[in-house]
């Protein structure tokens, strides 16, 4: 898996359950009055033809995604007075209720922490080279955004 640290940002793509307490602790800082954290989790779902979702399988172009997430943290810092940013994305199978991504941002004031965190997850989802496959209870699977059943 890939780890990298630049300044006070921490980016990680890893194939095991996320530790949200650790992610939050990593952005705590005496200069910060607020920390906003977003955690994306696998939501139960029923397909149009009645299949039940049991998990999502995440896959990343790791070398590119790590660069992209570092770049996102830098862009957030240019927009808001961010103290620290941590972005951790899980790959592999993520069962219902479990976390696939955690983003924590600390800032002197809470409004900036909320806005930067929201922008980071929205932009990560739009840009990062990370894909998910829906795993259904009947053993079928589909790549999200495509109708191709595999």
């Amino acid at each position, binding site marked *: 898996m890939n780890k990298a640290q630049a300044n006070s940002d921490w980016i990680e793509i890893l194939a095991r359950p996320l530790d949200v307490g650790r992610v939050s602790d990593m952005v705590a800082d005496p200069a910060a009055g607020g920390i906003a954290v977003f955690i994306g989790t696998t939501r139960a779902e029923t397909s149009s033809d009645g299949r039940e979702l049991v998990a999502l399988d995440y*896959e990343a*172009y790791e070398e590119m995604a790590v*660069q992209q997430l570092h770049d996102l943290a830098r862009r957030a810092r240019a927009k808001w007075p961010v103290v620290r940013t941590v972005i951790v994305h899980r790959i592999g199978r993520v069962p219902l209720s479990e976390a696939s991504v955690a983003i924590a941002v600390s800032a002197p004031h809470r409004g900036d922490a909320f806005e930067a965190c929201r922008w980071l997850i929205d932009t*990560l*989802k739009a840009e*990062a080279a990370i894909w*998910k496959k829906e795993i259904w209870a009947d053993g079928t699977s589909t*790549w*999200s*955004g495509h109708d191709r059943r595999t």
Partner: protein
Amino acid sequence: MKQIEVKFFAVLRDVAGVPALRLEMPDTATVGDAAGILAERFAGLGRYLPRVGYAVNRSYVKADCVLQDGDELALIPPVSGGNL
């Protein structure tokens, strides 16, 4: 001639049946040229191309980008966003 490394991800890896391959191309070949060659080689790849993005050496590029010898070209299907 130049040699490039092509990487497939997600639905495109399933379609291609391999995660990566090497491609020999003329010196003037662009990303779009490479995509055309791949669409001929892999039945079923062509219908995904209108929604596919391209990255060369881990940065997004347009289809008219001229490839250099040794470049890593990745075909990027639509990313995971939007569902949450």
